[in-house]
């Protein structure tokens, strides 16, 4: 069956450093992959989408890479700030005709001042 794994449940990082989060998937070749941010008790907020034919996507301090050979996406936050502390979710649509997003369990990022 198709799976999404976000390898780290939690990641602590010093303010100003680059945070790198990993998302791996199995048994499918998705057309695109999405990253969301979720704060405690809040709904997921869309951050970035990367398509299978894109190797890298940037938005301000955020960068996403997508390696369809490794079946992996990396999510980077450069110059991290305490306000970046949140849980980051990777999401995929498994199946061209499917409406549903399948989410990873998320990585809780804590940026320490």
């Amino acid at each position, binding site marked *: 069956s198709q799976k999404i794994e976000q390898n780290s449940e939690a990641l602590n990082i010093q303010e100003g450093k680059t945070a790198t989060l990993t998302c791996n998937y199995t048994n499918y070749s998705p057309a*695109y992959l999405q990253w969301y941010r979720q704060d405690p*008790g809040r*709904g*997921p907020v*869309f951050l970035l989408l990367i*398509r299978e034919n894109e190797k890298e996507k940037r938005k301000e301090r955020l960068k996403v890479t997508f390696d369809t050979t490794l079946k992996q996406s990396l999510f980077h936050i450069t110059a991290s700030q305490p306000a970046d502390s949140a849980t980051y979710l990777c*999401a995929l649509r498994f199946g061209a005709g499917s*409406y549903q997003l399948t*989410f990873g369990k*998320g990585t809780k990022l804590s940026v320490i001042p």
Partner: protein
Amino acid sequence: EPEVTQTPSHQVTQMGQEVILRCVPISNHLYFYWYRQILGQKVEFLVSFYNNEISEKSEIFDDQFSVERPDGSNFTLKIRSTKLEDSAMYFCASSDSRGSGNTIYFGEGSWLTVV
């Protein structure tokens, strides 16, 4: 920025009671969704809705669940006879298309506690 709004933010209900969770999707969106998240677990898909009918549903979305768009703005999730395991945060979401690359916008959630 337009947003998806949900009510109530928190509801406590007795096991076996019916619950209706309400959502107002973003006004020009055509695709509507319900997801849920049990405390400490993944966000899980329940159902998608387009053109006044269910487009897709997950195994979680059994006969106890139903969705409705009673008017041009509201989208509701009904749980007919709640069980303890229905306790979760329920997120409504909407998007303007289903195609590749569409962004799904989530509401802030309705926290349901079944006692």
